[in-house]
């Protein structure tokens, strides 16, 4: 039934990107080194970006790559390298089975519920408030929407970014009063 409805190239793209996403996600969970985890994350992000393109959100796909892959994950890598924590063996589930089991149960429950939500028929009756999507590229529609209907939130994000930058600068400044890590602590890690 599905094959008759869905075009084959799209299906191929979908399946490939889902596989990429899955590998990336699972890899992120099981990677031993944070750097590997970050690379798996990039992989997932690319998969999601491909799905975005397939859903007609090219702009978001580009922004996803620029912001997430280009800035966020690079920042992660930067911090990992800066702190020099990259060679640590950290992923040990041992002695933590109860917690892992609990987490598994919780996540499984969420998944089950989400599957019901995702596959159920949802008629919310909501109307398009911001603007209808056009058939092809939606960059113009998105831009118009962001700069008119959502102008205030847009401006607020600017403020948010400035605050974040200032906060990060303040946080990562080495203040003279702050004690540096002591020698015995560093040996424990």
């Amino acid at each position, binding site marked *: 039934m599905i094959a008759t409805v869905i075009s084959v190239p799209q299906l191929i793209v979908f399946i490939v990107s889902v596989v990429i996403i899955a590998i990336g996600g699972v890899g992120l969970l099981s990677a031993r080194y944070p750097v590997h985890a970050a690379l798996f994350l990039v992989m997932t992000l690319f998969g999601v970006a491909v799905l975005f393109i397939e859903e007609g959100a090219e702009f978001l796909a580009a922004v996803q790559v620029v912001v997430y892959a280009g800035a966020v994950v690079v920042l992660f890598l930067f911090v*990992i390298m800066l702190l020099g924590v990259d060679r640590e063996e950290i992923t040990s589930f041992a002695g933590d089975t109860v917690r892992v089991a609990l987490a598994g149960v919780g996540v499984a429950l969420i998944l089950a519920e989400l599957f019901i939500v*995702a596959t159920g028929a949802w008629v919310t009756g909501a109307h398009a408030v911001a603007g209808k999507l056009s058939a092809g590229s939606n960059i113009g529609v998105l831009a118009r929407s962001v700069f008119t209907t959502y102008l205030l939130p847009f401006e607020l994000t600017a403020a948010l970014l400035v605050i974040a930058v200032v906060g990060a600068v303040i946080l990562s400044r080495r203040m003279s009063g702050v004690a540096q890590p002591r020698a015995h602590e560093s040996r424990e890690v």
Partner: protein
Amino acid sequence: MSIPGSWYLVVAALLFGLGAFGVLTRRNVIVMFMSVELMLNAVNLTFVTYARMLNDVGGQVAVFFVLVVAAAEVVVGLGIIVAIFRHRATVTVDDISSLKG
């Protein structure tokens, strides 16, 4: 004919689950952070999917904002991590429990 939206939603749900599991089980703060990003991506995917299903650009706008907020969040979060690391030389969450009541 394109792929039905529910497929994307299922993928997003899976991604969310993976992220949640990662947050719950990993001990390295930075990796936990990455798992959070995974969850955010799942949400983004949901938004885009609903934008297509409901034919409303609002979903894409929401993703846009999520991206911005995520960037800000990462910047501040990593700043905090760096600061913590300078104090205690650890990025393992279980070692950072000075907020214990």
